[in-house]
């Protein structure tokens, strides 16, 4: 779990929880109520600026300014040492035409399936089943299932590389059951390396989705289920007519978190395959690093970073739109 993905999900926020918002579904951030004049002892506005100044200065210097600088750099051809030359939108055109860069963005689509769609689907179905029964030992299960979220991805990468290794546990099992011919160095296989990396993402994110949905099912009133049962509906009807609609907010949050995870994955790919074999597992974040620090294509790296940011912002909007549309 990384900082930007959480904060982005926060910002996307999805529609506000239904308990807070009326049918009109108020949008935008909550704010202190407006009143005329100042309450007794209420600070003068200038005090507020003093409170936010330190945070805002740090934030502006080391986050906002770099974003602007990144955009500037993306318009130049620069090797990081000599004088750069104006390139206009060439670096952006390159993203659409260069096979390596195009592949990097294309791979994120596959990763979204493994990082986001599978964990959300599996997490929701399992949470719905588990929510139906009272279970002992839930704190233990929750702790265990959520654990992959807190382990450094560098550690996750090292661990899974062992699991996928030619003499690793997966191949040992295949040999043991006589499927020797299926055994291979999974991360070295042109066709299978990308799904293999994706599966690690599934491992990281499924627990998050499960715990998120489980918390959501706890808030569904039991009468809703009873109503379905009175109508003669079975577990599947319960799931489609009660559970799924009720978990809409959680789904928006889960999708935002996991899709962004998939888009900005770096540690995992860099440390398992570093984009290989060939270009078969490269992703935008790895291309940013390689272009800027290995190939001396700083402008191109910045353009990839800016494009990635725009895609993340757009997807955020799209996902929260889907959330609000389904609410109607």
């Amino acid at each position, binding site marked *: 779990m990384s900082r930007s993905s959480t904060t982005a999900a926060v910002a996307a926020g999805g529609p506000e*929880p239904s308990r807070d918002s009326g049918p009109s579904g108020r949008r935008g*951030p909550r*704010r202190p109520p407006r009143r005329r004049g100042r309450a007794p002892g209420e*600070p003068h*506005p200038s005090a507020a600026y003093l409170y936010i100044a330190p945070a805002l200065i740090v934030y502006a210097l080391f986050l906002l300014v770099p974003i602007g600088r990144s955009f500037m750099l993306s318009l130049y051809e620069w090797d990081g040492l000599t004088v750069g030359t104006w390139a206009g939108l060439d670096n952006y055109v390159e993203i659409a035409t260069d096979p390596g860069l195009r592949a990097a963005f294309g791979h994120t689509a596959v990763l979204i399936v493994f990082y986001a769609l599978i964990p959300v689907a599996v997490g929701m179905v399992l949470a719905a089943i588990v929510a139906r029964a009272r279970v002992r030992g839930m704190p233990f299960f929750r702790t265990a299932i959520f654990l992959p979220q807190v*382990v450094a991805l560098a550690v996750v990468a090292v661990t899974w590389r062992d699991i996928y290794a030619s003499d690793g546990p997966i191949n040992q099992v295949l040999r043991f059951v006589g499927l020797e011919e299926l055994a291979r160095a999974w991360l070295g296989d042109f066709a299978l390396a990308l799904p293999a990396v994706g599966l690690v993402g599934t491992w990281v994110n499924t627990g998050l989705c*499960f715990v998120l949905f489980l918390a959501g099912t706890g808030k569904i009133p039991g009468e809703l289920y009873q109503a379905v049962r009175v109508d003669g509906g079975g577990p599947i009807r319960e799931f489609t007519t009660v559970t799924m609609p009720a978990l809409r907010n959680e789904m928006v949050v889960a999708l935002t978190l996991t899709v962004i995870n998939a888009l900005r994955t770096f540690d995992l790919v860099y440390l398992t395959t570093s984009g290989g074999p060939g270009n078969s597992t490269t992703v935008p974040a790895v291309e940013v690093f390689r272009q800027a620090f290995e190939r001396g294509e700083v402008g191109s790296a910045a353009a990839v970073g800016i494009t990635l940011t725009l895609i993340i912002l757009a997807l955020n909007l799209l996902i929260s739109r889907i959330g609000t549309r389904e609410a109607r």
Partner: protein
Amino acid sequence: MTSQRERALTYTILIAFAVFALYPMFTMLGTALEPGSDAPGGLGNFAVAWEQGRFGSYLRSSLIVSVVTVAIATVLSILSGYAFGTMRFPGSTALFYLILIGIMVPTEAVVVPLYYDFRDLGLTDTYAALILPQLAQSVAFGTFWMRTYFLTSSRGVAEAARIDGTGHWGTLWRVLVPMGRPAIITLVVLTFMWTWNEFMIPLVMVTSESLRTAPLGLAFFDGQYVSATSLLAAGAVIVALPVVVLYLFLQRHFIQGIIEGSTKE
């Protein structure tokens, strides 16, 4: 309508899930204890990895970077969250949206200019290069997080204290901060985890070995000892352990922080 079969199914799912989540962790732990070419086996592997992999030095760097980032970010976030959550001032909405936009930006988009600008300022390969970018990201999230706390739980208290004649500064530190300990602990825990686990910023910003953070050190150790899987696994355990232990003690804060942090507002 929970039948015996349904309960059995539920437990089967939960156990399968827990095994799926824990299996890679236990494999790593198992590998870390195996004897190998340079590895004596058992806990001795950790000693050898610690020594050869210089994990003592990496953990120290990580600890310095994490503690400084968390401490400064928490104080700045409390201050700005307090203003955004309890005070009215011109431009507050615009400034808040500015922070919201900024926090969606991934590290990948800022790391390139940060590196070249820090290099020009002679800041690369220093603790500042590791701390300042992460501080900015943490402050953005922290402002958001603390604002939510001040908005939801304390306006009445703040007004009562004000009417009592306590100034806004005193109200914040003597009333609201002690009251908001759970929210602040969650913020601290999340910021600590993010900073400890961060990989790209250290990878780009530092070259000297003494500044390498734990995840980066693990990556370099990995490059050196490809053959000694058990030592590498031991190193991985050492790197993961601080956050995992913290998680076991404060798991409620981790889970609520990641999940509720996203559903609030």
